[in-house]
């Protein structure tokens, strides 16, 4: 069974969006917080 050699697929530097990985992770965290805020609004909204 062939196995991948270390490093061949280690594409840490390839960042598809926002320039750096920390920014992508930041975007996920911010979006999660926004969703939680929207859910809080939804639950208490005076329909």
């Amino acid at each position, binding site marked *: *069974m*062939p*196995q*991948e*050699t*270390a*490093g061949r*697929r*280690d*594409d*840490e530097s*390839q*960042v*598809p969006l926002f320039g750096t*990985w920390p920014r*992508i*992770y930041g975007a*996920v*965290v911010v*979006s*999660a917080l926004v*969703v*939680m805020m929207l*859910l*809080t609004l*939804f*639950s208490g*909204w005076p*329909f």
Partner: protein
Amino acid sequence: MAILTAGFGALSRADWVVLAVYLVAIVSFGLWMGRGNRRVDDFFLAGRQMRWWAAGLSVMATQVSAITFVGTTGQAYTKGMSFLAFYLGLPFAMVILSITLVPFFYRAGVFTAYEYLERRFDARTRTVTSLLFLLSRGLALGVTLYAPSLVLSVVLGWSETATILLMGGATILYVVYGGNRSVIWTDVVQMGLIWVGIFICVGVAITRLPDGFALRDALALAQTTGRLETMDPSLDPTRPYTVWSGLFGGMFLAMAYFGCDQSQVQRYLSGRSLTESRLSLLFNAFLKVPMQFLILLTGVLVFVFFHFHAPPLLWNRAELVRVERAVPPAELQRVQSVFEAAHLERRAAAEAFALARHDGGDESAAREGYLAAGRRLDEAEAEARRLAESVSGEPYNDTNYIFPTFIVSQLSGGLAGLIIAVIFAAAMSSLSGEFNSLATASLVDFYRRYVRTTASDGHYLAVSRLFTAFWGVFACLVALEAGRLGSAIEVVNKFGSYFYGSILGVFGLAVLTPSARPRGAFYGLLAGMTAVFVVSQLTAVAFLWYNVVGAVTVFLVGLAITAVAPGPRPAGTR
């Protein structure tokens, strides 16, 4: 007296055609996409060539089982949307995994998550964690197949055996032949179908509201009953779904499931690069909570829908037939009359509530009137349930039957068939990933590790297919026997929750603490599982917290043992 079961509806010819087309098409597609497997690498990791969106949809599809789909809508119908808290920690878990475990798995070039533990610690830790995965996932597989088969058998009027064999057999067929490539591509189609189904259900539930009763009125009505509550800030650790249990317990559970459960790890290890793999997880971080929100909202809208359409006395048609046969007609007629009167009263109260909102009447009094009418209907429903329990001698719960009953009785023109196909898709997408991952762990962590350490790729590929078939047949056998296992099935279902967090703790030790030694990891794992068992037996702490208890115990005990009595160094390197 067959009056009670008259309103359940039945599938039309168009529905059966849609369902049949789905089954034939998905099996054919799975076989087509799975052609050309030459190596084990192809069979288990799709040649490591998957794009992020395909692997991401597969990750999502593997997690959404049929019972998640029908059970979650039923739960929203009966209790509201508080279950959404379960997913609050998931986006944060995806970020943590993308930073920590995923790069380690990639750089190690492993097939299974547990294989990495041997390189980091020792064979003993790998074998125990992989064995725990095989035991828990293997047995839970039967439940994954049995639960939707039971519901569908009642709704479709088939035998349980027929639904189990159809669902299990169709899935076995394409996974045995095509391996992970078939799993992922069929998951992509099935997940697309599930999304379409969710939007159709939300749309139908909204459009079937009565004239003059807007979506806003429906939401106000649901809000009055507390069903729109999603963010419970309570600090009580015994409450199952709070913001805190969801954020912390849910985050640990998601890290354990997506990071240490081979059925998920294998999906994203098939990405063509580390970036693709990370993006597949982050894709889920964005979509999972909105998706669950829509599924729960569907359940809430179905709840409002049945204010204006007569619901059955019991949602489980098979139980209702048993009750009709066993209970004296006069008694049954009395219970049914009370139920119908209470339903009409609640309907009138709901209309009065909407009228008061529109015409500026006394909204507060209308709300109180509606809630009082709702309580009377609850009492009538409770009496019907007691009747069912007196006939069967067992606790009665029909939450999982609400949504399928809504589909079959209210949708037409092939739509009911399409949504039943969506339920099949949800079941098959979970089963396929699990068959494939169980076969991988069996082959890589046991057969290749202990039985045949060297052999040709052709040999391992053939054995991989045998293992896949074995786990598929095993799932069908467990599902066929599940009805007789009774409460033992619940034990099996909870089995995994006792050590999920503990396994996460071992992986945490592996990647976060360079000094951790094999002895600390192994005895830490045992200590974590013991701690969770003690907490579950001696306290009323909600189950989401078990994952935190297990992971933290393993981590601290592992570090302590490493500091006090470290033992030998790991055989491999990080």
